[in-house]
């Protein structure tokens, strides 16, 4: 029997079917690396610039359309939710007159489409409206809650990557051995454990029990508000003003929720790394490297790992985006004033400005991360040019 029954599957790092392929990068990676003449490659650089320009314009259009789609869907879902947004403003004892007045003030008396267009118009002027559940401009709310999530998610993804990637590579290199099995089971656990359960148990053990970490919240209450937000990231802000005490305290608060988030992303990252690596390690060029007498670590980390950096970045970008969407449950358990919580509360109150604003931010993050991994993709994969 021939080995190359599926010639097309060979180049396809995703054919394992585990890839939540969502990025344009993925699309390109799937293009079979067909035979290309050398001649065409010389004329390429000139056209590449043109294509970059077109790509940029295309990106702008696509992002705008995506945003609009996002807004439209969120907006209309928000309107069919059987929660009356006026009630979150006026409460349940308001009189009919007060209710009507608030309704008019919120612009809800106008036709839906009009409401949508005026909302979009405001958004283009940088005005996301006022949240009815906090009574503040959504922009300032987001400036408060998003950095909190950003901080936690970033540390989480760092933990996930720093541990997950080597674990995945190691498991793949030792496929079938007990090391592989342990790593697989460990990684799969991250898929299966309910976040809030783990959060509470983590708190009970490491905070209340062992006292290794600080408890819920971003920082001890006495430090709270001591540092003026510049970036909104406490770790950064505290270092900016040189307050190491706050820094360590904030870090101690951050470690546990970030570690739990890290565990979840680790699960995904390690799994995907393993599976990408397995694909690579079964490729012929790995044998070629061995034929050359290349040392095993180099075979794995240079020949095996280099080609998977691109899909891996996609995966990491995706998990990062997922963490940035905010894990409502972790945020709730850890009293973390993040965007996940904000959005959930807003949604449950039909606080549509807040919901739309948060969705926009999250969508922007998603698109931004997409773009970043796209750029990295160009840098890291010669086939992408």
């Amino acid at each position, binding site marked *: 029997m021939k080995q190359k029954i599926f010639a097309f599957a060979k180049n396809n790092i995703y054919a394992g079917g585990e890839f939540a392929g969502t990025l344009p990068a993925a699309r390109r990676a799937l293009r079979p690396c067909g035979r290309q003449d050398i001649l065409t490659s010389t004329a390429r650089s000139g056209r590449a610039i043109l294509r970059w320009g077109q790509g940029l314009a295309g990106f702008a259009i696509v992002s705008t359309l995506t945003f609009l789609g996002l807004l439209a869907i969120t907006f209309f879902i928000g309107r069919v939710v059987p929660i009356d947004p006026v009630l979150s403003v006026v409460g349940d004892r308001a009189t009919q007159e007060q209710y009507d007045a608030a309704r008019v003030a919120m612009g809800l008396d106008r036709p839906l489409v009009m409401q949508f267009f005026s909302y979009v118009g405001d958004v283009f002027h940088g005005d996301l409206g006022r949240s009815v559940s906090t009574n503040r401009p959504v922009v300032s709310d987001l400036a408060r809650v998003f950095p909190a999530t950003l901080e936690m998610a970033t540390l989480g993804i760092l933990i996930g990557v720093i541990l997950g990637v080597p674990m995945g590579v190691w498991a793949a290199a030792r496929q079938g051995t007990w090391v592989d099995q342990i790593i697989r089971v460990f990684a799969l656990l991250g898929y299966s454990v309910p976040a809030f359960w783990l959060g509470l148990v983590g708190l009970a053990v490491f905070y209340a029990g062992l006292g290794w970490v600080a408890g819920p919240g971003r920082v001890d209450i006495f430090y709270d508000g001591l540092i003026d937000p510049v970036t909104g990231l406490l770790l950064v802000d505290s270092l900016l003003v040189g307050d190491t005490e706050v820094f360590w305290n904030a870090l101690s608060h951050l470690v546990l929720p970030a570690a739990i988030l890290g565990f979840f992303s680790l699960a995904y990252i390690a799994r995907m790394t393993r599976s990408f690596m397995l694909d690579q390690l079964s490729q012929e060029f790995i044998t070629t490297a061995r034929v050359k007498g290349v*040392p095993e670590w180099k075979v794995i980390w240079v020949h095996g790992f280099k080609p998977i950096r691109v899909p891996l970045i996609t995966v990491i970008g995706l998990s990062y985006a997922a963490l940035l969407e905010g894990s409502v449950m972790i945020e709730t358990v850890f009293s973390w004033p993040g965007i996940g919580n904000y959005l959930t509360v807003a949604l449950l109150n039909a606080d549509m400005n807040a919901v739309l604003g948060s969705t926009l931010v999250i969508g922007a993050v998603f698109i931004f991360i997409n773009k970043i991994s796209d750029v990295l993709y160009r840098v890291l994969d010669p086939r992408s040019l």
Partner: protein
Amino acid sequence: MSQSTSARLLEVENLRVSFPTPKGRVEVVKGLNLTLGRERLGIVGESGSGKSMTGRAILRLIRRPGQMTADRLALEGQDLQTLSERQMRNIRGARISMIMQDPKFSLNPVMTIGAQIAEALDVHERLSRRDTRARVLEMLEAVRINDPELVAQMYPHQVSGGMGQRVMIAMMLIPRPDLLIADEPTSALDVSVQAQVLDLIDDLVRDKGMGLILISHDLNLVARYCDRIMVMNAGRVVESCAAADLHKASHPYTQGLLAAVPRMKETRDTLPVLDRSSWSGT
């Protein structure tokens, strides 16, 4: 032609390679014996007859779950089977190297061609950057690559199949191995380039006393470039003869193969075909 003249470079006795299947282990190389001096040995046989597996087995590079066993596997008297993986690494590339069959899949897609060739050199020789580079370019030129500087910076997907094969050849020749296993090294080359490249390998055999195992299913080609020919079928050697005597081959399988090749001045109405029932594994 000369029959195994010089010292025994490679000795293989009772080489077996097997793979597990739902119906139990299946041997794809079934007790192959081979002794090679500093000469050119051709291995021919149809697809799936175990040619490539034999080559890999010599390098101890059969992948799991495949398994190989041999009563003897020695390079210049040194038993390869007793070597540790680390010692084996020193043998690979430097002493025995193998031109892999399919350059499209056998070159690392994200490393430049230059880097991949240089790596083959680096592993075994301590050379300065500049020297390495010079050697790489020299080697690329030797395999008739037109613009070595440019090609050295290209990635495998940017070169044609034929160029890929030549890159592969360069990469495996650069550490100047004692024994070269060439697995279909020229199947994607134009007929004219094919001749040039094979001449290059031929030179090395003559000048450096390199041993060559040339794997192919092109009978004409093997006849032209080898001293000795082994014909494989279904994991067994069915015939072994001097290249010049190929057309006199006695084994019906070999005869069948020879007869099946169409000729330029074709007059036959049908080509004779092998009676596979007595040979084929599938």
